[in-house]
């Protein structure tokens, strides 16, 4: 199935995945931080690889990323991407330390960010599994702080053997209560092309072919 053939019902299903996944992650995060966390309505976009990089500020923009490889019934990749200085705000709340920073080679900060990534991606993917009743196995999350294009490409390698476009299921976390600055974290779920068929079938959505 090529990406252009997705119909409205299928797009809605993918949006719902973004919705419940990020919703679950937002709930986990607000429990962790003991503050309310908002999220935006998910966007499902069929984009070229270059368009995807533009979406997060351009290929060589510096971001902090958590990457998880997804296996099982719906292989693919998942990212949580955030500006390093905004990641620091989360970390400072988690560690209750106003000086914690990812860029100061602070090991506590790095492990707090990994833990944050673990919680967010874990709860997102658990929701995906509950919703679809499919087996979702996630790799141990890894983090990096570097050019966003260089990091996101990791999630496009497998997709690129089949197509030049990615279906990007994107949800943004923002507006965390009690903060002066806005924080925006992006979730990207990038299923491999074959995973869509599996998801649609499991949810009883008619496939095109």
């Amino acid at each position, binding site marked *: 199935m090529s990406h252009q053939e997705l119909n409205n019902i299928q797009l809605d299903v993918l949006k719902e995945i973004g919705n419940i996944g990020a919703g679950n992650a937002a709930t986990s995060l607000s429990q962790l931080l003991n503050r309310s966390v908002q999220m935006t309505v998910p966007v499902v976009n069929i984009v070229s690889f270059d368009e995807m990089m533009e979406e997060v500020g351009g*290929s*060589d923009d510096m971001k902090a990323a958590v990457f998880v490889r997804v296996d099982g019934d719906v292989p693919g990749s998942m990212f949580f991407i955030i500006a390093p200085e905004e990641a620091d705000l989360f970390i400072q709340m988690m560690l209750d330390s106003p000086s914690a920073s990812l860029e100061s080679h602070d090991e506590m900060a790095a492990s707090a960010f990994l833990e944050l990534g673990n919680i967010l991606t874990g709860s997102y993917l658990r929701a995906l599994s509950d919703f679809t009743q499919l087996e979702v196995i996630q790799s141990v999350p890894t983090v990096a*702080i*570097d050019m966003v294009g*260089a*990091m996101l490409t990791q999630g496009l390698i*497998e997709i690129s053997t089949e197509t*030049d476009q990615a279906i990007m299921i994107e949800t943004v976390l923002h507006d965390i209560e009690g903060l002066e600055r806005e924080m925006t974290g992006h979730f990207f779920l990038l299923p491999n092309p074959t995973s869509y068929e599996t998801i649609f079938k499991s949810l009883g959505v008619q496939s095109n072919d």
Partner: protein
Amino acid sequence: MTSVATMTKVGIADYNVVEYPNTIMTAGLGSCIGLVLYDERKKVAGLVHVMLPDSTMSRTTSFNGAKFADTGIQLLIDSLTELGARESRLKAKMAGGAQMFDVKSSNELMRIGNRNTEAVRSLLEDRKIPIISEDVGGNKGRTIEFLLDSFQLKIKTIKEGVTYI
């Protein structure tokens, strides 16, 4: 008359060629390879941003050739030849082939950076195109720009700033 140099931007799985005094660049290379081929006498250069080592990996029969090292190099040489370059005079510089995340996985595609590097080296060797310099591997993103006045490849990374090879 003054001429203004322009910078041509090459996207992911894309290629292009330029003539002096223009420059050519690509941003955010991770496991991908940015390969520059240039002809010093004609002062022309081409850049391809490849994602994968070999076009046999494509699961579709029609595909974008710039995505793969083998077909990408061919496209680049063809375009450079059209600009008057000669294959026997071409030289190469390259960067990229990193592994951005330390993932423990049996999946070969998780370590694609090394395979891309090896594929490009071997394809260039087959064609007897010398690699003058390279900055490959590691776990860093790279943005590169090729300058036709000095034939230098400018490499920008987050941690190390700007270097020239």
